[in-house]
Structure formats: structure tokens, C-alpha cells
């Protein structure tokens, strides 16, 4: 890989660190699922880490995000505790949601993470609503809404983008286009030039980038976040990437060839960032150390999660509603 002009090595190292942490988390989650520790479905973002890292570096703690079923990366990049996240996957009381949500419903309101979602495209309406509240109260924070390419074929995509634009809400829409919706190539099911054209037809400026190039994501997201903060209304980022693993941790991915996946591994965002770091003069050991540190963090998180207590059964009956709460037996 050729050297790139004006690389901010420190910043790229930060990106690499974020991506390595996500990767280590996802690998642990995959293993945990395969070994039967995680009972519910798990959707891994391996290969897509650059989007999470490149976007979230621009966010403050008070900024908000919503994400999808494939949301571990965004959640980590926004600042959630990996130990609490793993505990959530394991269904333990110390999980981000006390074990009541699992991977599909991870949320951490303390860092502005308003929830993953089990329903494709449902996060879009919630994100614009959060942005609506932000604007209503005259706050200065912004909302980033992550969703997949498949979600752009559901009605709430149109409705939410239209909504964000007519009220000029502070939202950045980030479409993470990994080429697939479950076992289906999204292209076969999506008419027209693409999600960016759809956004533009709804009055929202759109940029399309190589989502596996963390620097490109960083730059584009920086510009768009800036615009959103400046009150320019909603913006749209289309990040092209690739899902290196199955749709869920139990999907073998028979709908695509091993050769295709193998070829795409050359484009692995971590690998690309590592190469760029090296040609920018960063020592191999530094990179190896970051990887090791990330793995160590997750190993510790895993250990603590696995040792965490199960929720008491009474917990199933809390936080349902206040007006006549149900009680256990």
C-alpha cells in the first residue's frame, strides 16, 4: 500500500484501537455463541468496524445514536462498557439491560446509545424522534442513526428521512451498505441508483464513501457531523462495506462463495489501517500491542461477564409499567 499524504498517525492509531476492540469483542461474541454461552441470536459486524470507528470519533458523550441488530460496533465506539455488553449477551444481571434485552436490544443511555433494534428500520423513526426532542428543547447535541442497506427498502426509511428534512432535524443518517440483507444480495431487491439517490430525492445531501477506509469515513463523517451541528439539517452518509461473517453467528453463508469472502478479506478495514500505519512509520510492535490490549480487555470483560450472577426471576417483572405492575406468581 502506498503512503498517503497528510496522515494523522495519532488519529489513525485511535481508529485502529477502536476497531481492534470491536473486532476482539465480535470474535468473543462469536465464540461465546458457538460454545452455547450466548443463547440468543448474534449479528457480527466483523469487516464493518471502520464505519463505527470513523463516525463515532466525532461524537460527544451527550450525542445520541440508534443502531440495528448489528450494533455492537457502534455501541462500543460510542463508549459503552464491553464487560456490561458481554454480560448482556450472556443474559446476566450486570448486562447493560440487566440481561432483559440481549444482543438485539443492547442500549446504554448513559453514553447516549438509545438502543439496538430487532426490527429492521425501526431505529430510523426513533432517531428522528430523538432529534425532534433535541430540537424542541433547543439542545445542541446531535443524533446519528445507523442502519443497513436492507433497511432502505422499508417504508420507515422514506418517512423518517422526509421527517428529518421537513423539520430540519440534527440527524446524521449512516447507511452501512454491506451488500447483503440476510442471505439476499440487497442489490437484487433494491431498485434505482442506491440509498444515496433516495436520500437526495428526499432533500437530504448524501455522500458515498468506501466504508472500509477508516480515514475516508472519518473525513466524510467529520464534514457531515459538522454540518449537522451547524444547523444545516439532516445529512446522509452511505458507507460501502462488506460483512465478512454470516448474517448471524449461526449462518454459514452458503449464498456466497468462499472465494468471494476470501477476496474481500484483502479489504478488511483493520488490515488496511494496519498497513497504512506501517507505511506511515508505525512499528509492527505498536500494532501488535494494540491488538493484544484489545484482546486483553475483552478477555477480562468475558471473564467478569461469565462470572456475573443471573438476574433474579423477580427482575422479569420490573420495568414493565407503573400503572399496575405485574408481580411474580
Amino acid at each position: 500500500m502506498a503512503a498517503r499524504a497528510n496522515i494523522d498517525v495519532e488519529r489513525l492509531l485511535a481508529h485502529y484501537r477502536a476497531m481492534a476492540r470491536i473486532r476482539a469483542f465480535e470474535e468473543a461474541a462469536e465464540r461465546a455463541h458457538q460454545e452455547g454461552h450466548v443463547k440468543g441470536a448474534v449479528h457480527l459486524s466483523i469487516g464493518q468496524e471502520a464505519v463505527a470507528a470513523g463516525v463515532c470519533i466525532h461524537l460527544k458523550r451527550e450525542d445520541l445514536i440508534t443502531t440495528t441488530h448489528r450494533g455492537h460496533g457502534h455501541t462500543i465506539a460510542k463508549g459503552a462498557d464491553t464487560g456490561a455488553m458481554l454480560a448482556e449477551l450472556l443474559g446476566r444481571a450486570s448486562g447493560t439491560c440487566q440481561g432483559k434485552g440481549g444482543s438485539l436490544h443492547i442500549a446504554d443511555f448513559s453514553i447516549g446509545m438509545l438502543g439496538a433494534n430487532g426490527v429492521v428500520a425501526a431505529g430510523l423513526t426513533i432517531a428522528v424522534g430523538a432529534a425532534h426532542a433535541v430540537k424542541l428543547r433547543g439542545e445542541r447535541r446531535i443524533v446519528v442513526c445507523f442502519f443497513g442497506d436492507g433497511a432502505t427498502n422499508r417504508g420507515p426509511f422514506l418517512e423518517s428521512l422526509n421527517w428529518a428534512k421537513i423539520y430540519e432535524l440534527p440527524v446524521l443518517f449512516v447507511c452501512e451498505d454491506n451488500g447483503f440483507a440476510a442471505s439476499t444480495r440487497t442489490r437484487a431487491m433494491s431498485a434505482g441508483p442506491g440509498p444515496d439517490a433516495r436520500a437526495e430525492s428526499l432533500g437530504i445531501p448524501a455522500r458515498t464513501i468506501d466504508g472500509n477506509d477508516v480515514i475516508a469515513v472519518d473525513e466524510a463523517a467529520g464534514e457531515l457531523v459538522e454540518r449537522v451541528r451547524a444547523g444545516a439539517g439532516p445529512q446522509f452518509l452511505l458507507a460501502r462495506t462488506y460483512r465478512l461473517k454470516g448474517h448471524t453467528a449461526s449462518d454459514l453463508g452458503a449464498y456466497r462463495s468462499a472465494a468471494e469472502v476470501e477476496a474481500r478479506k484483502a479489504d478488511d478495514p483493520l488490515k488496511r489501517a494496519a498497513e497504512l500505519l506501517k507505511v506511515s512509520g508505525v512499528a509492527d510492535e505498536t500494532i501488535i500491542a494494540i491488538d493484544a490490549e484489545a484482546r486483553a480487555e475483552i478477555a477480562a470483560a468475558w471473564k467478569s461477564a461469565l462470572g456475573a450472577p443471573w438476574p433474579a426471576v423477580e427482575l422479569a417483572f420490573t420495568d414493565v409499567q407503573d400503572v399496575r405492575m405485574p408481580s411474580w406468581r
Partner: protein
Amino acid sequence: MAVMSYLEAGKAALAAEMRDDASVWALGEDLGRGGVFGQYRGLVDEFGPARIVDTPISEATIMGAAVGAALLGTRPVVEMRFADFALCAVDELVNQAAKARYMFGGQGRVPLVARQPIGMWRSSAAQHSQSLESWYAHIPGLVVVCPFTPADNYGLLRAAIRCDDPVVYMEHKDLWAMTGEVDEAADLPLGKARLVREGSDVTLVAWSGVLRAVEAALPLLQDGPSVEVIDLRTIYPWDRDMVLDSVRRTGRLLVVHEAVATGGFGAEIAATVAGALFGNLKAPVRRLGAPRIPIPYSPPLEEACKISPAQIAETVHGML
């Protein structure tokens, strides 16, 4: 005490809450021009278009945006126009609003009110007449309210807005013009039924618009059995205590609702009471509701879906 229509009472309640609490706002189609029935008329003048928000025809996003805005601590009042159109926003209400607090382990709450006008009204036909309160009563996390009087529409809408749980608030379209006394100082709790009239022979539980037919049935029973009438008001949580206490005294229960009888909430009440007072009932619990047919347009056919006063009176007589 002021005399208000059911419609004005709802409007006054919303206005009062909006004055008291800056985090309350309303959103829906045509609200700036008063809403489809005029139940928001003038509010935009007092509160401005940022708090009385006109929306596109995007029911799913009206509801979903309210969820997001509620999670941040605002109190959105969602107008769905007709309960039937809320069927375009069921994922947002049932999968998101009702479950968010729980799924997220209590990190957030969804204090929204989803106003869903129900009921048969002027030949509105199959897609503008449904009463689906039993659906929402079945969904954990939702409170369901069906006010009948102007006083209740005032007090319960205020309570619904103040409630931290998502509330499905179902006004009946045929009641908008009905007037009554409203005590604006009264504090009405959710989950408490209203004793309309005392009686000793039969307990009649009903809610919403069909209570007019109940009222009209009472004179037909004047020299007959003594009927205790309870307006349930809140469908979930329903006031089991008041109903059971009453049936314990009367020994007979008739539940009347406008919704389809099969799978209506009357079934829940009937099953609960028949179980709890087994051996202490003088007659089988009876239920009256609409036949299981879509609501027809033609006036005489629509009429055939409605519970008539005569039918109520006849049923009561048949229970003795």
C-alpha cells in the same frame, strides 16, 4: 365546574398539561388547523407550531418519532385521527413503545399518549369505525383508556399525559359533541372505574360510546330489575375490585361493549368474574358486543352492528 363538550374537555386537558409542563407536545396530521375533528382548534395559537406539530401522512413515523422523543423525556401526545390508521403504526406502538423500557432494563421510559379515536360514527364503514381496545390490553407495557364523559375525557387525558407509561387513549367519535359538567380541579386516577348508578340485581359493566345505549336502556327497565352500572373507563388495568365487589352483591354480570364480542375485552372480564365468583353467581355472565363482521357502510346495516337499548334491556331481563 364548567360545562364542556367531550371534545372541548379533551382540548382543555391537553392545553392544561401543556401549560403546566413544557415537555408536553402534540403531533399529528392537520393539528395546526385543529385536527380532523377540531379537537386541537386554537391550540397552535397558544403553543406555537413547535409544540402543536403538523406532520406528514406518516403514521409509522408519527408514532416512532414519539417513541424517540419520549425516550429523551419529552411527553408527546400522538394523534392517530382514527384508531384504524394506528394499524399503520403497530410495530412502533407494540414492538417499540410498549417494550422499550423493559428491553433496555429500565434505562428509558416512553411517556407517550397515543390518541386513537374509535367507534362507529356516521356510516364511516369498515376502515374508520373499529374499536380495538382489547388488542392493546393484551400488550404488556400499555395502559388503555376509553373515556365516556366530558369530565373523564378531561381528567383521564390529563392523567394519561402525566403517566410515565405509554397510554393508548381512545376517544369515541360519536361523543365529541356530548356536553357535561367538568370539574377541572378533580384528580382522576387511571385504573379506577366509575360507578354510574347503584343497583342490586344486575351489574352492568360498559365503557365508551355504548354507555349511551346503556343509558337509554335504563328507562326500559324502570319497573324491573335494579341495575348497577359501572363505566370501566380504564380498560387496562381494569378495576377488578369495583367490578368484583359489585357482582358479589348483585350476583349477576352483563358486560357491554361496542367492539366485536369474540375476543373482546368483555371476555377477559367475564372469564375473571366467572372464575373469581364461581358458585356465587345467580346467572351466567353475559356479554354483548358487535357480531364478528366488518362494519358495513349502509346505515341500516351499520345499525345492526350496534348494541341497542332494547337488546340490553332484553338481555338484562333474560338474566333474572
